[in-house]
């Protein structure tokens, strides 16, 4: 870059480009400013992960301490618990949520009556638009000791279970409610892929005597395979990140052992307890792992197909 700026011919090109398109450059300014301040600003601020940040000294003025905060995170008692919880929630989501959307799309595709199909689709997308606070609030209510679920279980003679107070239930509840909320929405992309399959392939399969089942197996499934692979790889790139929003609403100190993930730990330690440098280090560690996973996933995705993130 710096070598090029000295190049008079190039400087001339940039100058004429700016002159000719000065209106566009002017428009780019607020957008550029937004990205620099609100996306690159926090990246600049990440240096406090290597410092002992004191608000009075500012980000730049605080003293460097090297990898102290990383070491105390890696050696801390919560390190493995946080990693395990974060990865397991993702893994279960991958095992159950991911195939659920594909299966729903395949089943919807088998419905011959299009009006019925549209109704089912509309209903299945609905939970996606309900706020997470309402979803979690309904769960807290239904799953409480006196809630709907325990009343139903009680009519079978089962003792009430305090679902959200027991660590053993958290992962199941988190993942199953996630499937409930997201399965319909997740199926859209597969339905789009299915509708893009060349209809003559089905005709050819029918002429060869294939029934619906064989058509699904030999035409539909291979047809959506590229979509499946890409989404699978992208999801694997997300393996180390669980958003804090839903967990924060559903967990409590009794279930921390299975529910506390990196992002909620950062929220508690950082925002509530103000250990800024330590949590910046934890966040940076998480971002770096996620970055590596996404880049690797993109590489693999490129190898499998033409589609890639960038």
């Amino acid at each position, binding site marked *: 870059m710096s070598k090029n700026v000295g190049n008079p011919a190039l400087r001339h090109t940039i100058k004429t480009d700016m002159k000719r398109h000065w209106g566009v450059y002017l428009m780019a300014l607020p*957008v550029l400013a937004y*990205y620099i301040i609100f996306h690159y600003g926090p990246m600049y601020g990440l240096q406090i992960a290597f410092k002992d940040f004191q608000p009075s000294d500012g980000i730049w003025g605080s003293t460097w301490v090297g990898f102290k905060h990383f070491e105390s995170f890696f050696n801390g008692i919560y390190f493995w618990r946080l990693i395990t919880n974060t990865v397991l929630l993702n893994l279960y989501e991958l095992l159950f949520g991911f195939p659920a959307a594909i299966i729903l799309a395949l089943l919807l595709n088998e419905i011959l009556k299009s009006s019925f199909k549209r109704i089912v689709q509309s209903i299945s997308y609905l939970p996606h638009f309900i706020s997470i606070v309402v979803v979690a609030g309904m769960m807290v209510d239904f799953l409480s000791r006196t809630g709907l679920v325990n009343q139903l279980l009680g009519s079978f003679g089962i003792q009430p279970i305090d679902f959200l107070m027991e660590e053993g239930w958290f992962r199941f509840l988190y993942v199953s409610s996630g499937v409930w909320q997201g399965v319909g929405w997740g199926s859209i992309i597969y339905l789009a892929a299915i509708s893009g399959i060349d209809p003559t392939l089905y005709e050819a399969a029918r002429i060869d005597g294939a029934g619906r089942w064989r058509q699904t197996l030999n035409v539909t499934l291979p047809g959506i395979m590229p979509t499946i692979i890409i989404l699978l790889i992208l999801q694997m790139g997300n393996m180390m990140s669980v958003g804090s929003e839903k967990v924060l609403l559903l967990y409590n100190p009794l279930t921390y052992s299975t529910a506390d993930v990196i992002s909620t730990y*950062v929220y508690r330690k950082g925002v509530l307890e103000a250990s800024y440098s330590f949590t910046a280090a934890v966040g940076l560690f998480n971002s770096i792992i996620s970055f590596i996973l996404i880049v690797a996933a993109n590489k693999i995705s490129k190898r499998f197909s033409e589609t890639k993130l960038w």
Partner: protein
Amino acid sequence: MKRTMGERVFGGINVILMIGLCVVTLYPFLYVLFASFSDATAFLQNRGLLLAPAGFDLSAYKAVFRNPMIMKGYENTLLYVLLGTAINLVMTAIGAYVLSRPNLYFQHFLMFLIVLTMVFHGGLIPSYLLVNKLGMMNTMWALLIPVAINTYNLIIMRTSFQTIPASLEESARMDGAGEWTILFRIVLPLSMPVIAVMILWYAVGHWNSYFSALVYLRDTEKYPLQLVLRDILIANSTDSMMTGAASDDKYAIGETIKYSTIIVSTLPIICLYPFLQKYFVKGVMIGAIKG
């Protein structure tokens, strides 16, 4: 086309499965709806699945509409949704327009700068300190400005802008139109479907968000509806709402108030949903073609 016996059996099972899915999806909402109209004491006695309200009583709704926190939260949320979506739309449209210009010198650099933020970000704490430093802490701007552009939406909009034929723009330029005129008079009117999708996605996002308010707001009178809801539903603090109710009624009404609160706060989305869902879906398709 003749269907075999097996296929017909499968078709029947499939329909039952799909109806089951619809029931599982809708029943929680129906239960909440029925419970919200129920008479509090009748509701507590008659527990289990509800197929209609247990008794009929509107006092839970009266309590919600009398509650200053909820009404203030509603008002705040409306303001945040309107203002936030307007900021989102202007910034995203400008960004998408700039990025869709052919032969702009810094185009690739700019695009790289933007896409990089999708895979690497500073995280919660540095953002928190930044918002603090900028003096936005405990103001609504902390909820609106840091999320002014959703990069994924920006790319969708750019892709849509790129499909507009360059000849239209050139002839406008001949007539002396500047960049802003081209954006507002030519590009935006030709991109109404994608604009609709953006408005809906951004607006629903603002309506449903609670986390940034939780992190950045201190004064309860600035709380958006979702944060008020969190206090009522998760932290279970309905006490403040029943000032005046006799003490043994308190627990009972406290139960039904939760349900009426859910209904009141979700109603706008549920009512608009049937009209808007085709746009939502369209948005996913636009994104899918790109992705």
